């Protein structure tokens, strides 16, 4: 809450990097499913605190106004004109990127997580290493590496297909998501009592059958809240890709502000709007995450 008074733009853009991913590495042998700090933090905003934040934003232009003849009303007017463009061309891309990233990250993460609990030692070690590597790397660095390492076009059957920047960004963001999903899967599997493995084994289930018919169905529910938690974190992190020139909401907001002669009064309405739209999207997800978490805890 204390950071709320900081510039909305800076806060918005680096929101995600201040979170779980940059925390010091902690080995988690007990295999608890990851905590949902981010969702808790987000879900704990009460409607009243939201009102106070909104008031702060309304007061701010009052101070700035004195220095310029460009009025706050004009800035809001400019925002209003650009709004359809920013939302349909910008925010929509953020959402598409978040969906695709989550899709790819989840599939890769589940495979990697299953690799971590594999009885084949080399496979388990390798999966563990990949998981830790991508879980503990700064997202922006991963994004830059993927951006520069992937070709900008590929040739399939004589036809050349360009790879758009946003698709490369999806691959870049999918890496840390994959690693964190991998940990969720591993943690959930390890959290099932060993008695379940033994019971299934003594009924002549093979390891694969035990995993798919007995263990995974039991931990599926446990994986949903942390999975949603990571989706919210990811969505909040998508503005990172504006640093790579992808035309998402922040990039387009800046372009719009440039078109409006870069009046400093535009900063708060435009970035404030980005903040609000992300909040409006992620807040219900966080609330739902916490509700599901509580429900699943009670039923355990």
């Amino acid at each position, binding site marked *: 809450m204390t950071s709320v008074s900081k510039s909305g733009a800076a806060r918005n853009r680096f929101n995600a990097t201040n979170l779980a991913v940059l925390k010091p590495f902690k080995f988690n042998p007990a295999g608890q499913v990851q905590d949902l700090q981010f969702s808790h933090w987000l879900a704990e905003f009460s409607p009243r605190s939201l009102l106070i934040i909104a008031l702060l934003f309304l007061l701010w232009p009052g101070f700035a106004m004195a220095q310029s003849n460009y009025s706050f009303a004009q800035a809001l007017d400019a925002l209003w004109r650009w709004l359809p463009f920013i939302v349909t061309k910008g925010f929509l891309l953020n959402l598409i990127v978040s969906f695709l990233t989550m899709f790819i990250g989840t599939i890769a993460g589940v495979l990697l997580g299953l690799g971590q609990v594999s009885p084949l030692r080399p496979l388990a070690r390798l999966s563990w290493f990949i998981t830790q590597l991508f879980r503990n790397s700064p997202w922006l660095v991963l994004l830059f590496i993927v951006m520069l390492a992937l070709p900008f076009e590929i040739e399939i059957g004589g036809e050349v297909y360009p790879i758009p920047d946003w698709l490369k960004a999806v691959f870049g963001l999918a890496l840390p998501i994959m690693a964190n999903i991998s940990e969720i899967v591993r943690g959930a599997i390890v959290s099932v*009592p060993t*008695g*379940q493995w*033994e*019971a*299934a*084994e*003594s*009924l*002549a*289930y*093979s390891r694969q*059958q035990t995993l798919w*018919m*007995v263990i995974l*169905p*039991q931990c599926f529910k446990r994986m949903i809240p942390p999975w949603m938690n990571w989706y919210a974190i990811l969505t909040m992190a998508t503005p990172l890709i504006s640093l790579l020139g992808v035309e998402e909401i922040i990039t387009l907001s800046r372009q719009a502000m440039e078109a409006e002669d870069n009046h400093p009064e535009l900063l708060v309405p435009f970035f404030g709007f980005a903040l609000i739209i992300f909040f409006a999207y992620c807040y219900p997800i966080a609330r739902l995450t916490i509700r599901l978490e509580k429900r699943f805890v009670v039923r355990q």
Partner: protein
Amino acid sequence: MTNSDWTPDQPLVSIKDVHKSFGDLEVLKGVSLDVRQGEVICIIGPSGSGKSTLIRCVNALNTIDSGSIKVEGIEVNDPDLDKLELRKNVGMVFQQYNLFPHKTALENVMMAPIKVLKQSAEEVEERAHALIKRVNLVGKENSYPGELSGGQQQRVAIARSLAMNPDVMLFDEVTAALDPETVNEVLLAIKDLAQDGMTCILVTHEMGFAREVADHIYFTDRGIIVEHGPPATFFTEATDPRTQEFLSQIL
């Protein structure tokens, strides 16, 4: 999987000079015993004497370091052992029931025969209902384990194991985690099995029960079998001081 050399007049389970260590701790120091078909044996002894480890070795949940365990002539201490084939013939019931919490009682019973033995669902369901009836749980078919008492869960676990039609049943302190008032219903279910001719190996602390159903009682302490005999003589004519001390504490 029955080994061609094995005939029903030989011991169904034959344990010979089994040694087993966990790290530096040797929990089994040369244990030998035979179980014939239809026989019920009870293994008793103080905590940490290796009883549970021993029966967990019989269905290869634990491996042994040396010695031999043969189930219907199949050597369990064999690196090439097909554990799944072995376990199809050896049922096991645990202290903590270990029912699958996401499945109903009936599904718990039906799952393994359908998925592992690939038997037809209709036939298995018929058998499952009969087993549920046998362990006296009619009406609880669609309850989830979380909705059942410990004693009820344990009886479902027995039915689940029986659904595989095993040749021998292992019971690992199956009443130790139960409330006293539910112990009896589980013991009754086991007694019913024993009288029906099922070969059973029980690790138990229920002396009265052991005396009543066992054909043979083994007393283990610190990894060896100290004394054994039929219940008629075991409880009254124990000669080893360790057995006498244990019995005096328990009885």
